[in-house]
């Protein structure tokens, strides 16, 4: 599972990307967020308020119930501010 972090999520985690292999119980975005929040103090800070986090699975916007698997590219980031 390939993870990407952007903007202040990246800064808090301390990494732009990482590869992880979560336990099989992690089946969707909500489960992955709970798993990641316990991974390091940086991850904990990044995921402290999930309402501030947006997620994309394989480059499509996702929600907490979106399934995740070992081959997926999963990105976490704040609400977008382009234009």
């Amino acid at each position, binding site marked *: 599972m390939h993870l990407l972090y952007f903007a202040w999520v990246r800064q808090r985690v301390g990494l732009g990307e990482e590869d992880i292999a979560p336990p099989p119980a992690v089946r969707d975005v909500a489960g992955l967020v709970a798993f990641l929040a316990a991974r390091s103090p940086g991850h904990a800070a990044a995921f402290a308020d999930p309402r501030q986090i947006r997620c994309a699975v394989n*480059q499509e916007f996702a929600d907490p119930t979106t399934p995740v698997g070992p081959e997926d590219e999963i990105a976490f*980031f*704040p*609400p977008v*501010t*382009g234009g």
Partner: protein
Amino acid sequence: MTPRVTVQAAPFDLAAEMTALLAGRVDVGGLASFVGLVRADEGLAALTLEHYPGMTERAIAGIAAEACGRWPLTGCTVIHRVGRLPPGAPIVLVLTASAHRAASLEACAFLIDWLKTGAPFWKREEFADGRERWVEAKAADDAAALRWAR
């Protein structure tokens, strides 16, 4: 017609982009453009734009294709810059050409509105006094929030 979509650090050449949309054509009645620029509000020294390489380009191409379906466009160009930009620098260009003025104007407004709310870009502000902060999305601008919160 395939929209031209680019995410780049370099400045864009608006006149050249317009010329490209009009070259050899006599069926374009209206060409609308919007350029967004960095404002020096509250002592802003620079704006740094980050994006999600791959997803950002796909997302913009998707919405540009949607605009071409909604309005009879003869040409459509979206260029969004990333990296560190000083006040006064152009950030984004939207260009829409159509036989009819209303179509070009409406599609241009639609695309720039969507770029604010749907494209994976994040802005960090640096101020003259050394402060830095990530720009927060306005609630009204956060279309993705619904997907998450439902």
